[in-house]
């Protein structure tokens, strides 16, 4: 009997300790369980696969990212990344967008819920694609360098250290092939959710609320003319539009509609089809 005592004691200790550890994590586990069946993750889409050979995130890659930043980014984003580079006023004097203040922790193009930090992949996508009309896309930069920039940008906002897993939007369903029925339903959603109040009845960005919209920094922010697909700063692929409607633009006036699409995400995909049909 004696020789099993030790074994039983160890086993009990292990069980108790794991119960204790489980206690701490039980709330998180329940939350994750509730979200099962819904895909999480960044909505790219992006032609270059960023996922291969992603370098480690550590002090060395952050420092390398800083060097790349100083060579490629300071002219718009500024030496301290406050969006105060010499070029900012030539882009626009009083109308948004201005180069982003990367220290603010507020990011526009995300796959995460309203008010949340972006995922790493979101920042990578923005660097790769640029922002049409305002920021060049750095596809010509090797992916490893772009990841180092992502890590450097994350190092500028302390919240990234605490929040390593921001709440993503729910990616339910996927692109619905465009059809008259789908566009019709999208049109109904556009009316019901009052998109026209800002974007206008015809989607030209001339809604009644359009003239006074401002971004978080006080710059005038005209709502997007939805009839010009290739001017969509968050991208114009169906997944990009879904992401825009669900996540909203933090720092801007475009709010998140995720709560109103909950349970009927298909309507979001129909809305996406309607918006894309406006450019034809």
């Amino acid at each position, binding site marked *: 009997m004696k020789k099993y005592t030790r074994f039983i004691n160890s086993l009990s200790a292990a069980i108790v300790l794991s119960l204790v550890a489980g206690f701490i994590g039980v709330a998180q586990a329940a939350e994750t369980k509730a979200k099962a069946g819904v895909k999480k993750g960044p909505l790219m889409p992006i*032609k*270059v696969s960023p996922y291969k050979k992603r370098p480690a995130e550590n002090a060395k890659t952050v420092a390398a990212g800083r060097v*790349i930043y*100083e*060579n*490629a*980014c*300071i*002219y*718009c984003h*500024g*030496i*301290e990344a*406050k969006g*105060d*580079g*010499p*070029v*900012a*006023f*030539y*882009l*626009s*004097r*009083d*109308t948004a967008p201005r180069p982003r203040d990367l220290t603010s922790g507020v990011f526009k193009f995300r796959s995460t819920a309203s008010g949340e930090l972006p995922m790493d992949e979101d920042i990578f996508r923005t660097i790769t694609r*640029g922002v*049409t*009309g*305002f*920021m*060049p*896309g*750095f*596809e*010509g*930069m090797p992916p490893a360098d772009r990841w180092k920039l992502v890590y450097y940008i994350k190092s500028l906002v302390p919240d990234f250290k605490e929040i390593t897993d921001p709440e993503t939007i729910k990616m339910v369903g996927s692109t619905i092939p465009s059809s008259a029925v789908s566009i019709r339903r999208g049109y109904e959603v556009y009316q019901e959710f009052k998109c026209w109040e800002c974007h206008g009845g015809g989607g030209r960005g001339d809604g009644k609320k359009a003239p006074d919209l401002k971004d978080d920094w006080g710059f005038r922010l005209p709502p997007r*003319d939805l009839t*010009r697909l*290739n*001017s969509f700063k968050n991208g114009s692929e169906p997944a990009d539009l879904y992401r825009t409607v669900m996540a909203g633009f933090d720092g801007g006036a475009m709010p998140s509609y995720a709560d109103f699409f909950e349970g009927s995400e298909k309507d979001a995909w129909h809305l996406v089809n309607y918006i894309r049909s406006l450019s034809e």
Partner: protein
Amino acid sequence: MKKATFWQKARCLASSVLLAVLTIPILFITSVKEAEAVPSFARKYDMSCNVCHTRQPRLNPYGQRFLENGYQLPGTADGGRKEKHLLGGELNGATLDSISNYMAVRLRADIQQGSLREKVDGVSEDPDIIFPRTVNIFFAGTATKDISFFFETEYDTQDPAESAMIFERSILMFDNLFRPGNGTIKVGRFDPSSLYSFPTHRQQLNPIKPIAETDAFPPAINRIPVLPLAFSAKMFGLTTGGLAAGVANAQPGTEGFAILPFEPYLFNAPVQRGMSLHGRVLGNSLLYQVGLVQGMTAEETPQTRWDTYVMLRYDIQGAFSNFQVSGFYYTASKAAMPTVNMGAGPIAADQAVDWNRYGLAARWQHKSWDIYGTYIADDIDKPVFSGGMALGGASTWETDASGISIEADYLLTDKWMLGARYDAMSSGGLIKGMPAWDQELNQDASLLGVLAKYYPSPNIGLYGRYHHNLESSAKLPTQMGGAEHPATNLTSMITFGVDMAF
């Protein structure tokens, strides 16, 4: 001065209206909203013109770095962008963009009216409608990673003989040879001052050429040009040579024989053929450039000469601002032939003279302001005329000269830009053409100009500009052809026009 008749004024008005009417349809065709932009680099990277330009055509610091980096995004070597078509398959590195990503056209047209105190031969006071005035076609971009090209043709309707649609500027660049940013070699026909803090190509105030005949000496200059006088030759009495020393040569020279004191020369002759090496050292702030450009000596039998220059520029970035200061030294050996004309034709000095040029420039951009200026000094060897006692005493030479040009541009709104420029030139060279003249030949010149430019879209600028000749009240006589010295003859110049690129 003759007063403009009613018909002249009516014609002037009608011309302005006609020009306006003609440009409106063009505006509709080419106008772009907001972020969409047109010329080739903007197409290639899908960006607004104003990412690289303060307002087209002037470059902002990002655009300057783009130019430095061989038309690749600063901090990258993106010549091998994926979207290009690969020639010869995946393994072959050569790529070709679609043509719209490297070809662009620039069109300038205007109505000019200069007011002259004394009407001179060949110079009319009627407004000139010059439509188009200049058409440039560019091909610029990267052939592959770190190999860049730039070809530009310029057709100038005011100088059709000179610019018959040949490649005015043609450059091949090999970028980032050592560590990234350290060294780029440029070969071809280029403007040596393109990286200087006051580059003279792509200015807001495009140069208005002089009206002059340069085949004889002295040249007949009937109207001073309006351009950055700091870069002008500044020296009176110089020719490009081809004369035997001391011999009165009754043969006139060819066009370009006389070096016009008001025209740009050396470090900013519009185009020079040669090569240069530039790069950043000691971090990202110090730019160096060394260059070798070709010319001909001004001797009796002209030979090839190689000018050398060195330029350094230091950049400081700050919040919404960039400050840069640059300096250069340019030396040209046997570049000009001092010449006098005693009535029997031009007589050359014993030897062609060396010509050295030094410059200091600074540029300060802060928010909507862009202020830049340069001081440039020239000196030549003291000319020696042996033989003929009259020559030795009569003509004395100032061997140095200097000039200054300062411009300030301000963005009043996203669409309106205002500008002002001051140019002054303290001339040198031959002091008196002939002993009998009581008027000195070399006269200082200074101009003040103001500009208002409206950009309905980033690639189209509609401007109105007014230049005042600050020396005009001096009313100096001249023996240089015409009733009055060109430095004072022009009282003012007013121009309306369009400058667009697509």
